[in-house]
């Protein structure tokens, strides 16, 4: 990306700045064959087969997030982003164990976070026009999930937590794909 600044003003238009995520879509990186990019956002996927995007409806209790924290590894070092998301599912069951065992086995995953403000941002993928299919996985560290299944105490909530972490060279791309399109894929 070329160095440069353009004007940016958060007080114009009263942008929706509520944090958190509503729900997500998940797929394995290897099931994505190509991405189409329109004006810097992913506008379409080509998939290896149908039905490979799975919708994840986690608890809406102010616990979910998708954060990207920038860092430089030394004074002149390159910029990279530690990306981490969390989704929480209340309960403690065999069904949760089975889901967590399968999801935790995936080495490279892609999560479309549907944020509370309506924007959709994709963790686990980087746009790269020179790469096969126009994309790569996260370039600095693969994106994968780490499940934790917690009974807690009787004063706490039993829950399954899925932490998804990886490291990008650039901030995660946004997508214009709707739920209808993702379900059709």
């Amino acid at each position, binding site marked *: 990306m070329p160095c440069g600044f353009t004007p940016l003003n958060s007080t114009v238009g009263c942008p929706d700045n509520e944090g958190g995520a509503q729900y997500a879509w998940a797929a394995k990186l290897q099931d994505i*064959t*190509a*991405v*189409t*990019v*329109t004006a810097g956002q992913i*506008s*379409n*996927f*080509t*998939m*290896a*087969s*149908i*039905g490979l995007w799975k919708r994840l409806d986690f608890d809406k209790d102010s616990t979910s997030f998708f954060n990207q924290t920038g860092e430089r590894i030394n004074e002149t070092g390159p910029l990279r982003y530690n990306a981490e998301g969390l989704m929480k599912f209340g309960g403690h069951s065999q069904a949760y164990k089975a889901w967590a065992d399968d999801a935790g086995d995936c080495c490279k995953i892609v999560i479309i976070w549907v944020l509370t403000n309506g924007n959709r941002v994709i963790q686990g993928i980087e746009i790269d*026009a020179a790469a*096969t*299919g*126009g994309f790569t996985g996260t370039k600095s560290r693969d994106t994968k999930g780490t499940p934790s299944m917690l009974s807690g105490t009787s004063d706490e909530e039993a829950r399954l937590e899925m932490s998804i972490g990886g490291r990008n060279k650039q901030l995660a791309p946004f997508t214009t794909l709707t739920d*209808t*399109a993702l379900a*059709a*894929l």
Partner: protein
Amino acid sequence: MIKVKPEFAEMPELVTVVDGKRVGLNKSFTATVPETGNKPKHTVEIVQATQAQLLQLFKEGSPILEEVVSDAKAEAKAEIHPLNK
């Protein structure tokens, strides 16, 4: 003519959406959708994209498609090429 690039042509169930409709890129096929909380296991027919749909996907920037000159046009071009005179 718009075609799938050779490196993607051997993937029989390659699928995408165009105008909100699911289409197969290499051929038509039948796929089994596993059971979910809302729907039982079922099969769906995926229809191969038409040339018009491929053209639209190409114009939208799909990196797996390419424009190729048909054989007849290629032959005509070769005939008038200066090196062939």
